[in-house]
């Protein structure tokens, strides 16, 4: 019960809500963006020798898992999950399945908000499947792997050595590959046919390749099916993510490499698995899908009040991480009292006065949330736009996009915030 006030605050303001609120691009929009046409490029050669393994200190990496709170969202980290009141997906899952101890009206309200943020992939057996060097790159510069999942891996305050050590820990159970080549004889054409026959497109996108049949529809099916669809990665990343020496084994018996996987066993023969693997890693792909930068809309000429900004942006997107610790058992969320490896920023966006109180930056000093950045854009607006740039594949140096790990807010939402600031931030 003592955590209820904190959850009330955190969850009532959770993440983002339905598209009618104008906040975020939906998963469907993300999927649509991922098939943008681009020039065809040649097939990537299949490596024939194992890449030199990236060095890293797994022992330190184990500690970093706790520092960066990987177990706040992911299972399978080798550490116990964080407590429910801090755990993203466990808390959301409890709300969705009615296990959370709160009144029916509150649960109904929260369900609307948490529905898109129910799942995060398990890290179980990551070392048996993934290349360590890919993990290092991904941790340093996360890309959106899962087009049907609203959330994505956040950009953490992580150094190169942190990424190497984390990757070393996450791949601690990996056996050294004898070869980085697929067995000879696989056929791209037969692989494609098999992927179509097995209906892989029911869950997976394969951007850069001809669309797979069976359009996914996360809105139907059981919870397990929805979860499988949401967590299914875009297959264009297989060639960089997966170890060649275990890809065929994965296709033959996924659960043998990851006990809690949602990937079904399709009953491939050895030859079929080889064909599918060859197709996935060798078919020529078009260049990465281009995400068009969001339009910068002109300032509104009508009056904009704090109430409107709060309702349409701050309460939907920001308060889940930048909350009021006084009414949340001392926890103001990772963007206020710290978390995910971030130092406390003391940024509370729960009221007008607390937002006006600004944040503590790296220099240890308080700064206004509205202070001008180098190009004259107010800091709050710059952070919202930086997230849009991250989605377009162009992170802004020195500025972490917000909301962290969630879809960028719409151009209209940024316009509203920017207009409010330009008008003097009226209440």
């Amino acid at each position, binding site marked *: *019960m003592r955590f209820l*006030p904190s959850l009330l605050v955190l969850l009532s303001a959770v993440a983002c809500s339905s598209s009618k609120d104008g906040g975020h691009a939906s998963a469907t929009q993300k999927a649509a963006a991922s098939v943008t046409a681009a020039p065809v490029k040649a097939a990537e050669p299949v490596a024939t020798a194992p890449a030199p393994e990236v060095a890293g200190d797994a022992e330190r990496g184990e500690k970093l898992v706790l520092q960066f709170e990987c177990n706040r969202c992911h299972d399978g980290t080798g550490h116990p999950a964080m407590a429910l009141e801090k755990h993203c997906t466990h808390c959301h899952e409890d709300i969705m399945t009615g296990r959370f101890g709160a009144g029916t009206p509150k649960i109904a309200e929260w369900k609307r908000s948490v529905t898109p943020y129910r799942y995060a992939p398990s890290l179980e057996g990551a070392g048996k499947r993934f290349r360590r060097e890919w993990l290092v790159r991904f941790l340093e510069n996360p890309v959106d792997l899962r087009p049907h999942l609203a959330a994505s891996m956040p950009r953490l305050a992580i150094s190169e050595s942190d990424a190497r050590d984390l990757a070393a820990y996450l791949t601690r159970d990996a056996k050294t590959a004898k070869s980085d080549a697929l067995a000879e004889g696989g056929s791209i054409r037969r692989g494609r046919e098999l992927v179509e026959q097995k209906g892989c497109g029911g869950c997976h996108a394969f951007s850069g390749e001809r669309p797979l049949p069976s359009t996914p529809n996360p809105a139907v099916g059981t919870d397990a099916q929805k979860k499988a669809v949401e967590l299914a990665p875009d297959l264009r990343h297989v060639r960089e993510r997966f170890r060649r020496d275990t890809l065929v084994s994965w296709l033959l018996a996924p659960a043998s490499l990851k006990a809690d996987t949602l990937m079904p066993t399709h009953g491939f023969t050895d030859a079929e698995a080889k064909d599918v693997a060859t197709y996935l890693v060798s078919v020529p792909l078009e260049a990465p899908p281009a995400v068009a930068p969001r339009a910068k809309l002109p300032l509104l000429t009508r009056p904009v009040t704090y109430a409107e900004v709060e309702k349409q942006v701050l309460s939907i997107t920001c308060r889940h991480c930048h909350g009021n610790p*006084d*009414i949340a058992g*001392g926890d103001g969320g990772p963007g206020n009292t710290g978390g995910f490896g971030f130092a406390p920023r*003391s940024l509370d966006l729960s*009221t*007008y*006065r*607390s937002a*006006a*109180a*600004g944040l*503590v930056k790296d220099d240890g000093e*308080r*700064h*206004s949330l*509205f*202070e001008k950045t180098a190009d004259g854009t107010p800091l709050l607006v710059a952070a919202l736009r930086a997230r849009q740039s991250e989605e377009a594949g162009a992170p802004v140096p020195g500025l972490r996009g917000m909301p962290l790990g969630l879809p960028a807010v719409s151009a209209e939402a940024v316009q509203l915030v920017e207009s409010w600031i330009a*008008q*003097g*931030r*009226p*209440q």
Partner: protein
Amino acid sequence: MTFTKSLSRPLFAAFTAFAFAGSAAAPARACGGEWYPIYEVDPRIEGVDTAEKKLEDGHVLASAGMVIRMIPHIKTLSPTRTTLIQRAHRVLALAAVRYDGALPVGAEVPDYVQGTWLGKTAEDRKTNLDWAVKSLREIAKAKKDDPASRTELAEALAKLDDSKAEARQILEDLAQKDLITSADGYATLATLREGAGDQEGRRAALERCKTMAHPSQAGICEGRPASSVAT
């Protein structure tokens, strides 16, 4: 003595038996039906939250009345005792400041808890303002460099002749970084600048006040006292 001794053993035995019987696990239905927990929620949690919202919306007296009714002994409690008490202190202290130490809450607060809050005498008003400054100072100290707490402390300090300089220092520092968190803070700064003969600074502070003010409190940015525009 003998009588006491003779009674003590049977009494001890009876007490022990009773204690054992009481501690034994009894089936739920033995209590007269299905057992279920009844959570008692402190009504002040919601009450203080409502009072804060009323204060934000410019309903200063209503917020003060709520706090006095809910926590009539608030003056005996340290403002840093719990976060709930701290929030209650803040609401009441700011209300007292915005009404210059005289809160006309006689109609909504019972006689026996009115104490000095009505500020009928100069001494009562001074008592209330001193209490407000003390509370807000302790809150600002507990919250370290929080600009919102510092803005509110400065607003209170500005009401006392011997602390106007300190109030101005705080507000000028915050204004330089665009960290004054309320229209009231800018209205206070305008008054302090005027007192120091800085008319241009006064106008600038009032302009900033006007852009920030809640529609219900716009009057404070025209140089009128908060109590004349608040409700």
